[in-house]
C-alpha cells in the first residue's frame, strides 16, 4: 500500500469506530465479568439491591461449591474445635457444618474424561480418514460436507430417543464409554472435514519425494504429513474439545449419576436455603475459564472451525 491511499479510512472515522466497538465489547463482556465477580461475593452481597460493584471478596462461593453443608445448632457450634483453616472458618461463621464433599469435583472430572477421551478418539480416527479422503479416491468423498451439515440439522433430542434405547440395550447408559463414543460420533464428521482442509493444504510433492526416497506410504504419512499438519490437528482438537465440553442436551438426557458432566450439574447447585448464586457462579467460572483461554489460543483458526471449514480465512 502506498503512503497515501484512498481506501485507508480517515483517522476520525477510525476513532469513532474504535469508540463504538469498545462500547460494545464492554457491554458484551459485562455478563461474563459478573459471573466471575459473583463467584467471589458472599451470599448477601450477591443479592443486594442495587447490585454491588465494589465488595469485599470472599471465597465462600468456592467453599460452598465443593462442599455439602447443613445448618448446625448453637450447641453443636459451641462444641466444635476452633477452625483450623479458612474453609472451616467460612463455614462456621455462617453457622453451618460440612457434611461431605459435594459432587462438583466428580462432575468436573467427568467432563474432563469425556471431553479428552472423545477428542482423542475423534482426532485419531479423523486424521486417518481425512488423509484417505485427501489423498486417495474414496467413494462418498463429495457427499461429506453435505453429510456433516445434515447430521447437524437433526435436533439432538430427536437423536437422543434411539440413542437412549440403544444405550439401554448395550448397557452403555450413564457410562463414560457411552458418552465418549457418542461425542466422537457427533464430532467426527466435523473433525474429518476440518482435517481434510488442513491436509489438502500440504503439497503432495513432499510425500512423493519421501516415497521416492524409499519410504512406504505409512512412513510418509507418519514422518512427513503428520508433522506438517500438527497445527491443524491441534486446532481441530481444541474445537472437538470445546464442543464436547459445552454439550448439554445429550448429557442431560443420557447421564444422571456416574457419567454426568458439569453442564447439567451446575444449574442444580442449591445452597442450604434456595439458589446459591455465588456457588453457581464459582462453578461456572471454573468451567468457562478453560474455554476462554482456548478461544484466545485458537483465534486464528476460529472462523474455520465454527463454519465447519466453509470459510477459510
Amino acid at each position, binding site marked *: 500500500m502506498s503512503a497515501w*491511499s484512498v481506501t485507508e479510512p480517515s483517522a476520525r472515522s477510525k476513532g469513532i469506530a474504535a469508540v463504538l466497538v469498545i462500547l460494545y465489547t464492554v457491554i458484551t463482556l459485562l*455478563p461474563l465479568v459478573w459471573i466471575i465477580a459473583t463467584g467471589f461475593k458472599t451470599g448477601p452481597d450477591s443479592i443486594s439491591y442495587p447490585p454491588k460493584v465494589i465488595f469485599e471478596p470472599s471465597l465462600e462461593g468456592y467453599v460452598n461449591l465443593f462442599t455439602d453443608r447443613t445448618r448446625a445448632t448453637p450447641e453443636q457450634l459451641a462444641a466444635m474445635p476452633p477452625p483450623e483453616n479458612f474453609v472451616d472458618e467460612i463455614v462456621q461463621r455462617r453457622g453451618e457444618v460440612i457434611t461431605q464433599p459435594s459432587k462438583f469435583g466428580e462432575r468436573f472430572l467427568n467432563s474432563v474424561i469425556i471431553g479428552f477421551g472423545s477428542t482423542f478418539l475423534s482426532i485419531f480416527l479423523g486424521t*486417518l480418514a481425512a488423509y*484417505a479422503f485427501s489423498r486417495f479416491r474414496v467413494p462418498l468423498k463429495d457427499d461429506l460436507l453435505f453429510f456433516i451439515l445434515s447430521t447437524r440439522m437433526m435436533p439432538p*433430542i430427536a437423536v437422543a430417543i434411539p440413542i437412549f434405547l*440403544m444405550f439401554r440395550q448395550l448397557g452403555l447408559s450413564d457410562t463414560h464409554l457411552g458418552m465418549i463414543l457418542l461425542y466422537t460420533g457427533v464430532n467426527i464428521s466435523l473433525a474429518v472435514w476440518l482435517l481434510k482442509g488442513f491436509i489438502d493444504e500440504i503439497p503432495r510433492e513432499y510425500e512423493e519425494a519421501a516415497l521416492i526416497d524409499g519410504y512406504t506410504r505409512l512412513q510418509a504419512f507418519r514422518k512427513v504429513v503428520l508433522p506438517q499438519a500438527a497445527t491443524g490437528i491441534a486446532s481441530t482438537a481444541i474445537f472437538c474439545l470445546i464442543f464436547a465440553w*459445552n454439550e448439554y442436551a445429550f448429557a442431560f438426557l443420557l447421564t444422571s449419576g456416574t457419567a454426568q458432566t458439569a453442564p447439567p450439574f451446575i*444449574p442444580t447447585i442449591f445452597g442450604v436455603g434456595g439458589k446459591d448464586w455465588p456457588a453457581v457462579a464459582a462453578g461456572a467460572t471454573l468451567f468457562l475459564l478453560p474455554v476462554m483461554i482456548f478461544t484466545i489460543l485458537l483465534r486464528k483458526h476460529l472462523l474455520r472451525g465454527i463454519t465447519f471449514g*466453509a*470459510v477459510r480465512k
Partner: protein
Amino acid sequence: MADSAIDRLARATPSSLARRVRGLSDRAIAWVFVTPTILLLLAINIFPLIWTVRLSFTNFAANKPNAEVKWVGLRNYTRILTDPDIWQTMQATAHFLFWTLLFQVVIGFSLAWLINRKFRGNDLLTTLIVLPMMLSPAVVGNFWTFLYEPQIGLFNYAVEFFTGIPASSFSMLGSVTLAPWSIVIADTWMWTPFVMLICLAGLRSIPDYIYEAAEVDRASKWRQFWTMTVPMVLPFLMLAVLFRGIENFKMFDLVVQLTGGGPGSTTLLTSIELKREAFEKWRTGYSSAYAIILFVTVFGLASIYVKALNKVKER
C-alpha cells in the same frame, strides 16, 4: 545402460515384493483409514435415524419396553399436523428465529464494518467480543436467569438505570409478553459474534483496488457501500444466516435453562416440546414422528436456501 530384460526383472521383483511386505498398498490403506470412521457414523448417526423413522410408525413408549408395540401407520403424523399446540410451538420458534436472525445480522454486520476500519487494537477487541459464543450455552443460560431476576438482577438494574423503569416492576422471565424477548436478547448476546466474524471475513476478502477504481470514477461512499460492499459480503452473510438458522431452529440448551418453555407455552420452542413429549410424557412413537417432521422441515428449507446461496455466489 545395457541391461537385459531378465536383469531388470530380477531387480524389480524383490523390491516390489519387499514393498508389499513393508507397507500396505494405497488401496488397502485407504480402506483401513476410512472404515472405523464410517462404522462409527453408521452406529451413531445413520442407525438411530433409521430407528427413529421405524418408531414413528408405532405406538411404542420407551418407559414401557415390555408393552405390545402396534403399527399405527401414519396416525402419529396426522395427529401432529392437526394439533393446534404444535402449531403454537412452531409460532414461538418462528418468532425466536426471525428476531434473533434480524438482530444478529444487523448488529453483527455493523460491528464487522466498524472493526474493518482497521483501528489499532481491533484484533484484541475481536477476540474479546467472540468469547460469549464459545461458552457452554446451558451454563451461561442458567446464569442469565440470575441477571434477569427482578430487583436484584443486573439486567433489570441496567434497564432501571437507563430508562427509569423500576427494576422490581417487571420480570423478564415471568411475564408472558417479555419472556419471548428474554430468550431473543440472551441468544443475540451469545451469537452476534458469530455473524460478525463471518461478515468480517467477507469484508476482508474485498480487494482494495475495487475501491480505488470507484474513487477514480468518483462514486460516492454511499454508492460504493451499496453497490460494492453489500453485494460482495452477501454470500458470507447468507452463510452465517444458514448456520444460525439451523442452530436456532433446534435451539435447546440456552432456552431450556432460561425459561424451560414457560411461562405457559410462550417460549415453548420445538426442541423443548420434543423433549417433553419424548422424555416426560414418554410418547416415543409420537415424538419420533415429530422429530422426523422437524428434520424434513429443516432439511427442505436448508436445501432451498443453499440453492439461493449458490445463485448469489455465481453472480
